[in-house]
């Protein structure tokens, strides 16, 4: 019988909006073009409605020339 593992729930937050502001008010469309996704996907990520894949997360951090940890923050719920 398979053993049931209970994983802690976590919240993924990001500060893309702030990073865009500091990058000369980069628009959502500009960020979308640079990362190869649609503007709606950027909107969904910013609003915390969609968790991007690791590849897209790295592309976003690469666009702002910062580490992944500086874009996304994970907090585990106890």
């Amino acid at each position, binding site marked *: 019988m398979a053993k049931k593992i209970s994983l802690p729930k976590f919240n993924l937050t990001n500060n893309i909006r702030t990073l865009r502001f500091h990058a000369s008010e980069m628009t959502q469309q500009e960020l979308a073009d640079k990362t*190869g996704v*649609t503007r709606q*996907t950027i*909107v*969904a990520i910013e609003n915390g*409605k*969609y968790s*991007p894949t690791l590849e*897209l997360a790295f592309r976003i951090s690469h666009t702002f020339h910062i580490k992944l940890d500086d874009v996304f923050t994970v907090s585990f719920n106890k």
Partner: protein
Amino acid sequence: MSSKEKETIITLISSILILGFYSLYVYQNYLIENWELINDFKFWGTTFLIMIPVAIVAQIIIHIIFAIINKIVTNEDLDEISDERDKLIELKAIRISHWIFTGGFLAAMSTQAMGMEPWAMFVTLIFSGFLSAIVSESAKIYFYRRGF
């Protein structure tokens, strides 16, 4: 509203119109003259086989017309790229549509197991195909609205 949402709504509406007009055409041109065809396997086989290319061509034409009208009205092109979120939404919608069609297929087989006439099986198959397409497109709209 994003262009993906608009396209999904157009697919939803066109699916209803295509099946509606095709059913009306078949009814008026074949069934009204010879109602006995309703239990003819050749009739249903031909109806299904013709419906598939007709639906595909009609969908393509409707989408081309929509793209032209959208360009004229909003002066914006439709999203050509399909990113990871679009693909994930597509997969979720296909999964839902698969389950609905499987249920419809089982219901269609049940009509024969219960001794009902052949037309009941074919109508159930068409209806389940139609329902799976409608629910799938509606699910896409819901996922796009929700974010994912």
